[in-house]
């Protein structure tokens, strides 16, 4: 290659590189702005509920498993994911996370989520709180945009105990629209929040008893 051509190629690639970087920065900027907006909106909201749909894909099953449920968020206390008739996952900020099964007679049985699964719950906890700092050590971040939503894909830097292969989060300036957790080999779950409600009065006593860890427990 002649010197002028080489110089031109270098110049073009540098421009391309910088413009690409600039685009990435821009996507990150917009994503983080949306995150800030969502956080600002819910800053004073101690109690929230969120209806959701979930699609579970398994490599050994031709059709995905369809579920719906309610996520209850009690700020600085716990997030509770309730699958009607299936069970509840309570991800506590203070104590161990637990699975809870409510029997037909109304009695509940709790089981600590094994410590080997704590990575998975730490990730879920960080996602619900939109706290990405905690994930920066373990994941590479990739920003994108699609159909008016800003997206973030997280790829683990190295294999982790949670077996998560990728995480994807889509959000607008108003709310999280989709969370996808992939485990590789075709196993993934896609959670699409439907509606969000803020409860200024807080949860009822029954809700607290059923969906959270109370001190007596």
């Amino acid at each position, binding site marked *: 290659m002649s010197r002028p051509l080489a110089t031109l190629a270098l110049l073009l690639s540098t421009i391309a590189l910088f413009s690409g970087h600039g685009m990435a920065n821009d996507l990150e900027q917009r994503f983080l702005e949306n995150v800030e907006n969502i956080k600002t909106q819910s800053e004073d909201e101690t109690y929230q509920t969120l209806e959701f749909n979930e699609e579970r894909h398994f490599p050994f099953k031709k059709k995905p498993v369809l579920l719906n449920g309610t996520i209850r968020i009690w700020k600085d206390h716990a997030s509770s994911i309730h699958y009607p008739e299936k069970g509840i996952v309570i991800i506590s900020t203070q*104590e161990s996370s637990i699975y809870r099964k409510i029997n037909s007679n109304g009695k509940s049985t709790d089981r600590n989520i094994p410590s080997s699964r704590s990575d998975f719950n730490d990730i879920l906890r960080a996602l619900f709180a939109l706290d990405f700092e905690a994930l920066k050590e373990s994941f590479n971040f990739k920003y994108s945009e699609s159909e008016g939503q800003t997206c973030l894909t997280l790829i683990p830097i190295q294999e982790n105990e949670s077996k998560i292969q990728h995480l994807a989060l889509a959000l607008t300036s108003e709310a999280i629209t989709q969370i996808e957790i992939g485990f590789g080999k075709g196993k993934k779950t896609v959670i699409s929040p439907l509606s969000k409600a803020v409860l200024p009065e807080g949860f009822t006593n029954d809700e607290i008893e059923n969906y959270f860890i109370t001190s007596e427990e």
Partner: protein
Amino acid sequence: MNPRWRTVSIVATLITLIASLAFLSQKEWTQIIETDVSTLLPNNESTASKITRTLVSEKQGRGIYIIIENLPEHEETQARVNESFLATLRQSPRVDSIDLVDQSLLNDLFRYVAQNKLHLTFPKWFSIKNNHYNQLPSDGRPTFEEWAAASAVEDFDNFLESPEAMQLGEEGLLDPLLLNITALKNFSATQSSHPKDTEATAIKYWLTLNTSPLSVSTQDDIELLFNQAQSSLQEIAGSDIKIRYGGLLRLAAASRTRIQNDVVKINLLSLIGVISIVSIFIRKPWILLKALPIIVFALIGSFTSCVALFGSVHVIVMVIGSIIIGISIDYAFHAIFESKDSNSTRKLLFFAALSTIAGSLTFLSSDLPLIRQIGAFTATGLFFAFLYSLTLKRHDWEQSKGKEISSSPQLLTTARVLIIAAIITSIYGFTQISWSDDIRNMEAAAPELLKEDLALREQFASTEDTETLLVTGNSYLEVLQHADDFTQSINNPNTFSLSTTLSTQSEVQALTETPYNLTHFFDSLNQAFENAGYDTTLFDSFFNDVTSFVQSPIIPQTFEDKVATLPFLLNGPFAGLIDSDESLYWTILRIENREFTERPSHIVKLSSLEFINESLNGYRSSLFTFGISAISVVCILILSFFGFKKGIRIVLVPGISVLITLGFAAIVFDDLNIFHLAGCFLAMALSLDYALFSFDAFNRKRPIPFSVWLSAATTGASFLALNISAISVVRSLGFVVCLNTVITLILLLALSSRYIRLSK
């Protein structure tokens, strides 16, 4: 005493002393004194007791729970700490094994159960489905094979919808019947519902000793080992790092230190008390030097007989056997301070010794080794004491002091009033009497240490709310059957039992005798999953196992053999969860909140505390029975020697005084225990001596002899010192003997007015 007889006594005493010392010198002192409580259990104990003894002395009793705290969060440093700690401890010859207490502790067990699921867990699944199927209306229902296959698919679908499905990191665990998932859930429940979660900056271990935790050298070695480990860990991870450990060894070591301090303190106070009293009474305390060897001589006799008969002397026998110290010193006092006008001292000493020795010998027929040892220890000690007392010469002393004290009319009137008041009070005391033995009363460790140990134990697998039950049977499958029947009958969700995971005898039986075609069932199962949209290649390994399972003979013994491997896979706090010893088989059930009231005979409480307490209760009732026999023998001998009229007066004194003492003790203490009872027998033996010598004096119109006053005062002072002990049962013994001595003297004073001429 005739000088010729005295020479014979001296020669006999010397011969027995030399023979005893020669015998004892061949033994090692560390082997002579036994401290393990389990060695005292009767030989004809029940199956449950044998298993409990094995668990207490061989398994749980040898466990030490350890937490390393304040670790830096840096993972590499934590790994180095772990490596260094394990390396240091594994070097010690005292350590049999040390395991990290985390999820991995049950990994071997889970892996084995998963690999052998068709033998270990499939019969349970099959039985549950069979029961459901039998409840269906028989009209138009599909064949069992098809129905069970469809039901398995439904269960699988439900599992995929459960919260756990997405968190399952390992798809290889899945099998079409969810056998592995069910086992995993049950084993995780054991881990997570019992031990508290460990902080991220702490690591938990379980160490098993290969020697007794009650051995002094083991305690010292382990303490040194932990100090060394702490220093090396501090070099790796900073000075904040801390090792906390607990278990029987720690408590026993702390108790030992406290007992040692107690013994020094009590003995010193006792000695000061005795010297002070002797100085007050005779102003020549060096006379004690003539009397004190009798104790050493009696103890040599006691040790010799126990070692010759039983191989060792248990430490508890030594405590209760202190009876002989109290009585033997009295023999010396009676011999040394013999009244000038009495020529019956040696005869009385002979009666006293003979009756007490004969009483003690009745203990030898007991089934309980502790009672037999007490009998031999006491009888031989008293015989040696009596022999030594014959060698003592009368000391020339001033007798008037005793007479002055004993014959003051005011004193005698006061004594009569006091004794009536004491009888009334003790009658009230008898309405309050209750007996209970608790090993914790013998516990000499500091309360703070006990509290710390309990907190530490809660980090592992033991809480105060958890009831541990021992389920016994004639085979592994039978114990699992018993455990399953019981857990189903109590219907308590907070129950952990291997029987909720592993198949039981009836389930195995039902499978081996099933009329259904297993090959057809597994084919239907494969087809049902295919039809439901599953790619069944995921289950290839399961169906390969199934092929060999249905081709080999399905007989119960194969299932039993598979369970028999489990004990080798259980370590740390789970050791002994299911096990066998010779023809005894057992498993352990853990139940929170104790919501049951009745249990079948093959299920017993497994609490080392309650087990030892029950043993102590047995000992107390045996001690009572043999004590009564001993008293009867003594009474018969006294009545034969002295005739009914004189004899009854003599035996009534110890009888009445001990009953009054018991009444008072019932008021002072919430519950009376084996040591109060032992104190009563010691007190009776002492009172009998006082009564013998006093009535001999009364017959000569003399007041209570000086030797009785001196004996009582020194005994009272010695046993009063026991009341400052940190150990509750030692205080019990001290209180009973001390109070009984006072009451006997008051009673004798009150009675003396009938016999002697009062001084004006």
